[in-house]
């Protein structure tokens, strides 16, 4: 185990393991056949260490299985942010960090790299090369913790204002807002680091329907957002993990939006594929790498086209053919007693048209690129569906087959 470390250099390698643990937490050592047993053991040990408060282990005939037990009703932060807090560093990194914090006690204090080196030796009896101190100071300038300016030939460093110094009256309220936003906003991990810095934790806000795995894709999201803002094309390396096989493909895509499911937490890149001349979506959790390419000349033209297309996506699919799927659902809803069903239809129907047909009977109609995406939604109305009609014969057959299969499964009708 001499090669085992709790901290890591690269996030990418551990990302897929954590995701698998989160989703297929019940996989045993043998299920991870792609890498050696030793790699599996190290990754498992690391994940168990990072997330030890949330780990649930059980023993089955297949071996020890480890899973993450996360109850979103009780979590004040995303436990998977801990994975982001595992970057390795050197002994010099951590010492210089705390020496800098101590030496730059006031925002008015300025030092050259040589001054810093001397003060560190005088105050803490540690000898560093001035070049190393300068490199670290320049890194902190880049990160925004220090600023630098020239005084003749001397380069002086100074600490930037802390949050408390910059916004003294707003500070407590801001921390409350950050407590909420670290749980709910994009790249929330960053917010959790602000709370870490101030040594405070959220105790007020919770999320219902909290899907925590999404943070594992934040580095991918970060690169894609940057490309969206600058109208650049990107190449993405995509790895789809179906149960039976894994496939790697590379796509050149013009990124436009991130589609998000609030019911699964799954996020998708929506973009234009110049080679196929169509819009498409790719799951963020399947994107392994993003490479920035040149700006896309027709960015705004296709952006406008996309905005016109979005109302016809029920989910994330732009369909595979040019024809639209027309769906019509007729429902039995007792007026005055079951109006909450109508509320659900309006709330969840994504722009579909609701018509009162006769007493206690309503229809819901919608035209979409891919009717298959409506099927889970339609099945939530089981118990009150009078009919399901569509111009897509496959969907129609599938719907009635599913109901039939369920009725047999629960022995409502005989096999």
């Amino acid at each position, binding site marked *: 185990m001499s090669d085992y470390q709790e901290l890591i250099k690269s996030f990418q390698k551990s990302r897929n393991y954590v995701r698998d643990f989160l989703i297929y937490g019940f996989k045993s050592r043998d299920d991870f056949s792609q890498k050696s047993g030793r790699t599996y053991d190290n990754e498992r040990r690391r994940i168990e260490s990072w997330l030890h408060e949330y780990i649930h282990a059980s023993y089955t005939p297949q071996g020890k299985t480890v899973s993450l037990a996360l109850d979103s009703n009780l979590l004040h932060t995303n436990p998977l942010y801990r994975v982001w807090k595992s970057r390795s560093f050197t002994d010099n990194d951590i010492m210089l960090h705390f020496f800098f914090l101590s030496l730059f006690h006031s925002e008015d204090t300025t030092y050259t790299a040589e001054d810093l080196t001397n003060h560190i030796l005088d105050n803490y009896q540690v000898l560093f090369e001035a070049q190393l101190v300068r490199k670290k100071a320049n890194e902190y300038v880049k990160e925004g913790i220090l600023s630098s300016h020239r005084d003749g030939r001397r380069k002086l460093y100074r600490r930037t204002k802390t949050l408390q110094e910059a916004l003294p009256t707003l500070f407590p309220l801001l921390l409350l807002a950050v407590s909420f936003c670290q749980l709910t906003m994009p790249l929330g991990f960053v917010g959790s680091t602000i709370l870490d810095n101030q040594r405070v934790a959220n105790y007020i806000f919770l999320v*219902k329907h909290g899907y925590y795995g999404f943070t594992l894709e934040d580095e991918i999201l970060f690169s894609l957002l940057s490309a969206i803002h600058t109208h650049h094309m990107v190449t993405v390396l995509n790895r789809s993990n179906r149960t039976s096989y894994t496939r790697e493909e590379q796509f050149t895509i013009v990124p436009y939006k991130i589609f998000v499911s*609030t019911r*699964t937490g799954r996020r998708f890149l929506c973009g234009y594929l110049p080679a196929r001349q169509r819009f498409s979506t790719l799951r963020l959790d399947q994107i392994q790498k993003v490479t920035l390419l040149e700006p896309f000349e027709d960015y705004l033209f296709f952006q406008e086209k996309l905005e016109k297309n979005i109302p016809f996506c029920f989910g994330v699919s732009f369909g595979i053919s040019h024809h639209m799927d027309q769906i019509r659902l007729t429902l039995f809803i007792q007026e005055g007693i079951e109006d909450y069903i109508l509320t659900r239809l309006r709330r969840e129907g994504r722009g579909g048209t609701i018509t009162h047909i006769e007493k206690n009977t309503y229809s819901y109609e919608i035209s979409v690129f891919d009717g298959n995406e409506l099927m889970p939604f339609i099945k939530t109305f089981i118990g009150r569906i009078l009919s399901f009609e569509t111009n897509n014969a496959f969907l129609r057959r599938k719907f009635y087959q599913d109901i039939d299969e369920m009725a047999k499964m629960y022995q409502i009708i005989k096999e």
Partner: protein
Amino acid sequence: MELFSELYNCYYQVVDHILKEASAHPISQKRIQAICGEIGFAESSFYILPKLFDGTWHLLSCDGTHYQSLTGEPQSLPLTLLQRSWLKSLLLEPRFCLFFTEEEQEALARYTENAKVLWRPKDFHYFDQYADGDDYTSPTYRAHFQILLTAIQKRQYVHISYHSMKGHRIAHHYLPLKLEYSAKNDQFRLLAIPEYSHILQNINLKGIQTVTLLSRFLEEDFDFAAMIRKSYYHEPVRLLIKNQRNALERAMLHFANYEKKTKKIDENTWECLIYYNSSMETELLIEVLSFGPAIQVLGPASFLNQVKYRLSRQIKLFANSSYVTPS
């Protein structure tokens, strides 16, 4: 700007806490170890303690038994450019702005003016979010939100009058405990207990008509997690998941927000136990139905009976409906 940076490392946090305490008074090895356990990962003390004690990280001095900080109390780190950029992006989000007046938002905008926006609301399309989310710009809603925020911090009782989901008007004294946000509903709920009761209630902020602070405060400690756990049914929902149409992965993602346990039964079948309470029951039932025959409910009987009831009602509707023209 890097997301994965040592600046946000958990070990830095551990050492920060140790130095803070060791600057106020000398602390023992045992106490240092305890801080490592509280803030660090499970095995962090194996890596951090030797480096601190043998002086590889020359940050503590030792008088033989106790340790003192060499650097004094570490002050809080200024925000990095990444953190300021994150705050700047939040200023475009109405839910963040709920917390602040316009003047306060302007002060924040000035503080973040040199940072670049990481995302804009229009970069995201929440395709399955409910259409009737809360109105975060309503002055009344904002006022209610801020009163409740104050009450939760001070553990102060409030008088709330609101319209329930069934349309009843209710007025009562409550102790507000938490504010819960749902991205799916795009709304806030207040989790509160009525005075003289220990039963947790959810109140949609949208339905609140009036809320006023009372001059009473909760004095004793309160175990919120125990209350939630106590609300769960003793028997979890037992599901059999058949791995068809990628149902396994879909189900694991879909039910990721519940506390659950899953085990493999055979090559193509998994059993999943989901823990729930009465407030989650209907939603869970609907979610299970949305998977069609890929998921079979095995128990408990009360949950299974609801599935069977809906299905038999469906079969009867098909049998009697003039609308149905099955294939």
